[in-house]
């Protein structure tokens, strides 16, 4: 057992174990969203034409813009881990700040998108929506639940990343011990992954 950490008399730690714990948690999240995607799949199968009509109301450019924002934020968080590994602390902090800003930009877009919908009387339980056919009510119900839950994940991820950003600044997450940053990054990538599927399923039904 020649573990190099014993030589530097560091306290016991197991980064692989920490990452595995994070992955196991991510799998439970995957199953949670999997259930929602299953409901979506069955209802899309049953109300295909009405889903198409309802989806035309969604703003494709905001959806596409948010996709680009999330993909870019995934890049910046991955780069910030790389920068910290190389000991470039300032670069790492900058990249995490950019990630935070991109997450906020996503939420601002979401705010405008949802407020436009609500302004048009499309929100769960609204009079306008309840007069539409069943398939369209289901589409918007799923739209609000799934993108809403995803938005909640964005907020959680933003808080998670900001806390770790604090750790990086104070130095408790550093070049030699950065598993917290890796795990925050993993969570952020999961949020990105979910959006990779939400985007075509809601915005790109022709």
């Amino acid at each position: 057992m020649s573990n190099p950490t014993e030589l530097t008399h560091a306290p016991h730690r197991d980064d692989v174990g920490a990452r595995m714990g994070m992955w196991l948690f991510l799998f439970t999240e995957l199953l949670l969203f999997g259930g929602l995607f299953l409901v979506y799949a069955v209802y899309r199968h049953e109300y295909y034409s009405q889903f198409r009509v309802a989806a035309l109301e969604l703003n494709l450019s905001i959806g596409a813009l948010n996709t680009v924002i999330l993909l870019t934020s995934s890049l910046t968080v991955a780069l910030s881990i790389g920068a910290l590994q190389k000991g470039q602390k300032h670069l790492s902090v900058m990249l995490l700040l950019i990630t935070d800003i991109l997450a906020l930009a996503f939420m601002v877009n979401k705010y405008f998108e949802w407020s436009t919908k609500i302004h048009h009387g499309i929100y769960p339980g609204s009079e306008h929506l309840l007069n539409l056919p069943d398939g369209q009510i289901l589409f918007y119900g799923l739209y609000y639940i799934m993108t809403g839950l995803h938005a909640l994940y964005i907020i959680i991820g933003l808080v998670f990343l900001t806390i770790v950003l604090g750790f990086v600044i104070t130095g408790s997450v550093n070049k030699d011990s950065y598993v917290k940053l890796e795990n925050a990054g993993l969570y952020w990538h999961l949020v990105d992954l979910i959006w990779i599927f939400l985007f075509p399923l809601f915005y790109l039904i022709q």
Partner: protein
Amino acid sequence: MQEHHNNETHQISYSTYLLVWVSLLALTSITVTVAGVHLGDYTLFVALMIAAIKSALVINIFMHIKFEDPIFKVFLGISGFTLLVIFSLTFFDYIYR
């Protein structure tokens, strides 16, 4: 990884990350463009295939699965398989009801 240094990770170069990011953006523009073309029944299939390729890039490179211990890949495979089983059983029930 080779000698199993429990607290070391494989380092990926900045250019690899940037390349993956560019590919992800390219795939996004392809999926948006393809959605405008009438492919009938294949629309959903094509959209999901592109989403799957994007996921594979994010999981392998951004999430480092490619460089993790094999057990991570086993777990990932099991959870993906579980989802597949849930979807298949539900649709089997739903379609032949």
